[in-house]
């Protein structure tokens, strides 16, 4: 007999979600629905009619962990729609910004993941806030890496959270030679730290996967060999930066994308008939409550070639580096492996940058309503913005955000795991739910349809 258990809200990720899980008698998930409960803010709707310069600044406010992704994807989608090619030095500045943001975001995510993990070879769970060694040094190292990421982002982007420097047509400002030296010095300072940190984190995640059981709220829970496995595909547009419809060989294909409604994809109304008051902290939803995922989910379900896909660090590693580790810990390990790319990336781009080069295109066309798109490889995966700009104003706008892609994929990856570890799988995706929650839904014929909720 299967039962339904609900974890609401989930914790240690960005935004507001819950897990509705059908489990068997052993507590193994048979079907899992992971859904956003973050209120729809409707960025895509309110963008219509606004100027192409303002919309990327609004889109940035979708998320404060990865505002770089939304600023750059939105700006470059505008540029793709109007057909504006930005100068090389502006692209180099954007590239440094991208690397800096990924560095800080991955380091931040370590803080969220570590409390699930054990110090390798011990039965001690890691509390990142403890003053005791060796965890204290790890926490300080994470802080330093984030500080470097945010400071470099601030120098090239104008601001670490909601960068002010990018604009349609390039950047407002180039940086001074002194600022470039500062970036280089900071990157060099972070380099050995990042290497040590990557190795430490990988050992921690491997250790988790190799354990027979882990403890959750006093329960000993087995770790299956196939923890977090799924058979969905991967989607990535670049190892570091992204792609846009201005590229000679774009690496994302709008015609392969469709989107369905949560109504078509999620579970119907169901009653919760299992609860666990010891689940940390505060227990699961009490039995007797109702859940209705297809009504409650606040996002669309995007498909690529008709299937949910995984995006993010592992998707990039699979596509561009022949990475082959599956499961939740495979995804975590892929994320750690990106540390070095971030640091070398900012150093190489800083080297190539001409600090007296121009950073704004001579001519910025106003657009004729052509569809343009830009994909930015955000810390959590491909962030695709699609837009039609006419006479300098946004006429149509849509965001396909990494966590939106990952929602259905991750839901499938929950199958076969003990329900107590469902959140560990969710966290492996580094979800960013305020990013994921958006408004427009496109049906199989590419026509925009309203959500069932609104109909």
């Amino acid at each position: 007999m299967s039962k339904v258990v609900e974890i609401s809200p989930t914790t240690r990720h960005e935004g507001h979600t819950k897990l509705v899980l059908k489990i068997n008698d052993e507590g193994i998930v048979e079907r899992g629905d992971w859904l956003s409960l973050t209120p729809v803010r409707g960025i895509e709707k309110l963008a219509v009619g606004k100027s192409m310069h303002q919309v990327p600044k609004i889109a940035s406010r979708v998320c404060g962990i990865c505002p770089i992704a939304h600023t750059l994807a939105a700006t470059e989608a505008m540029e793709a729609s109007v057909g504006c090619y930005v100068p090389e030095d502006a692209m180099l500045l954007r590239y440094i910004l991208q690397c800096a943001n990924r560095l800080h975001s991955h380091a931040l995510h370590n803080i969220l993941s570590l409390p699930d993990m054990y110090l390798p070879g011990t039965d001690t769970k890691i509390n990142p806030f403890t003053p005791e060694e060796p965890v204290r040094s790890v926490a300080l190292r994470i802080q330093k890496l984030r500080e470097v990421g945010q400071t470099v982002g601030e120098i090239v982007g104008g601001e670490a959270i909601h960068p002010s420097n990018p604009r349609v047509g390039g950047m407002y400002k180039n940086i001074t030679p002194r600022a470039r030296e500062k970036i280089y010095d900071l990157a060099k300072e972070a380099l050995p730290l990042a290497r040590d940190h990557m190795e430490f984190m990988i050992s921690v995640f491997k250790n988790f996967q190799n354990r027979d059981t882990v403890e959750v709220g006093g329960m000993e829970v087995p770790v299956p060999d196939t923890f977090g496995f799924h058979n969905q595909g991967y989607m990535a547009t670049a190892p570091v930066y992204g792609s846009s419809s201005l590229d000679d060989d774009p690496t994302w294909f709008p015609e392969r994308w469709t989107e369905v409604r949560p109504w078509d994809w999620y579970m119907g109304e169901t009653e919760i008939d299992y609860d666990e008051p010891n689940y940390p902290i505060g227990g699961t939803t009490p039995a007797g409550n109702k859940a209705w995922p297809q009504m409650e989910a606040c996002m669309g379900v995007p498909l690529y070639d008709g299937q949910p896909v995984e995006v993010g660090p592992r998707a990039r590693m699979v596509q561009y580096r022949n990475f082959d580790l599956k499961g939740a810990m495979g995804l975590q390990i892929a994320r750690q492996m990106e540390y070095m790319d971030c640091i070398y990336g900012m150093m190489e781009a800083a080297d190539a940058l001409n600090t007296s080069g121009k950073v704004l295109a001579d001519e910025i066309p106003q657009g004729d309503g052509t569809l343009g798109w830009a994909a930015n490889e955000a810390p959590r995966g491909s962030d695709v913005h699609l837009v039609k700009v006419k006479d300098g104003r946004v006429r149509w706008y849509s965001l396909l955000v990494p966590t939106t892609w990952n929602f259905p994929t991750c839901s499938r990856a929950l199958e076969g795991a003990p329900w107590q570890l469902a959140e560990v799988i969710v966290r492996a995706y580094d979800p960013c739910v305020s990013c994921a929650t958006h408004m427009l839904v496109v049906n199989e014929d590419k026509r925009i349809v309203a959500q069932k909720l609104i109909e």
Partner: protein
Amino acid sequence: MVLGNYKSVVAARSTDNEILKGAQDGGIVTQLFAYALEEGIIDGAIVAGPSDEPWKPEPVIATSKAELLAARGTRYTLSPNISLLKEATRSYGLDRIGIVGTPCQMQAVRKAQLYPIGMRDVPDKIALAVGIFCMENFPYQGLEAMVEDHCNVKLESVKKLDIGKGKFWAYTERGAVAQIPLKVTHKYEQPGCHVCLDYVSNLADVSTGSVGAPDGWSTVFVRTKNGENAWSKAIGAGCFETKPIEEVKPGLDLVKKLATDKITKNQKTLDERATFGVGKGLRNPYL
């Protein structure tokens, strides 16, 4: 306390003739920043540099003595120096910022340090804030009217502008001197200056101005620990010639008198705002 808190006050001038040549008074700001740059006390200074229009300043971040020299001399019109405060920590990559400004601009710096609203990373990067004395300021159109209409001098030909001894003075490159009584300039004053209660940049690390010292010299207040550190090092390095303020004419009494006049007059304007309308008043930012 019309002169604010200070540790010491002297009359001083730079010992560098190159600086003095184009300086308004004793070349204090230019010399102090030049020394601080050289010593690494600051790695850049926000100053009022030249712009495309004559006698219209534009804030710039000076990282060399040449750029500091280009910013010498008083421009009696607005230079929004604080507009570069955050940018200095961003694309300019500065860690230790020097900034010069009028009393209101020093207030802005201190407010940004204590209440950084949208001013991330600014509070701990202010290394040396140098304030100048300021009685009032003029919009650029006001300055144009005063120089071109009242003084009957082309702005392009002006070498130096000065307010002193109750008059507004314009000196031309070719040696002519024009002057008008200050009372004709009053209507051109920026209205916002009429609620200002600070004459000698009370909140600066070091503040300086012409009043109190003889021509070619400046009155200098050293106010903070930070300011004292930079000032005493500069004195030690022989950057400045100083005289005790008691030994110069007209001395501190005049400074105190003008400061009191400014504060009294503007406090009255502020008080009147409370009952500006019938049964209602205008906002008072000090409340």
